């Protein structure tokens, strides 16, 4: 399941649901609102594009890394410090595949999926700059 949503998610349940025939390793990435002098984080997505982009990344990762399952929840809206922003659950036969798949997916999301974050700071608000000056790949 791949969703962009405001609600939080039960990661334990996602892991249980990810297990299937042949699964020997699951790697979970959980991105969390870090307390860098911020009060809250506000997330915005171009959902009609972000969702198919996520799906494209997932099908590429599945093929390249031989993954058995991928589930992604990317949250939007206002999130407090410590809340989950992004949860990626990757299942594979072996750990090498699961780690590589997980890393491939998070890097692809950071590089190219149209989602933005604004830090609601004690000293004012600040849009988080993209990791790549050109934010390339959004329309791959």
């Amino acid at each position: 399941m791949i969703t962009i949503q405001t609600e939080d998610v039960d990661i334990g349940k996602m892991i249980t649901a990810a297990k299937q025939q042949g699964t020997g390793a699951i790697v979970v990435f959980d991105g969390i609102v870090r307390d860098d002098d911020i009060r809250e984080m506000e997330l915005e997505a171009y959902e009609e594009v972000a969702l198919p982009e996520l799906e494209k990344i997932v099908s590429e990762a599945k093929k390249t890394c031989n993954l058995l399952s991928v589930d992604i929840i990317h949250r939007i809206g206002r999130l407090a410090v410590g809340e989950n922003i992004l949860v990626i659950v990757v299942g594979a036969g072996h750990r090498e595949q699961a780690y590589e798949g997980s890393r491939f997916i998070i890097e692809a999301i950071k590089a190219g999926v149209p989602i933005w974050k604004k830090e609601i700071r004690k000293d004012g608000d600040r849009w988080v700059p993209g990791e790549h000056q050109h934010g390339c790949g959004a329309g791959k």
Partner: protein
Amino acid sequence: MTVRIRFFARFRELLGTDIVVDAPKNKGLSDLVKDVAGKNQEGYDAIFDEKGAFREYVILMQNGKRVETSDAPAIRVAEGDEIAVFPPVAGG
């Protein structure tokens, strides 16, 4: 003809989002964004440089497909198009 323009993140804060424009036939993509962004100087300056060219970090989409900003002046918009204009992404 009717075209939708969607700004995101900082551009949205400055210019609004989901703006429906009644554009003349064969309107250029660059000119269309310029017209709409022109209503707010700070918004315009965030997207265009002093020569009127898209700033290098601006990302442009036409109907969900990436368009190189250098190609934008030559691209025509069509009835029902959705144009998206946004800064570098920072999700995850």
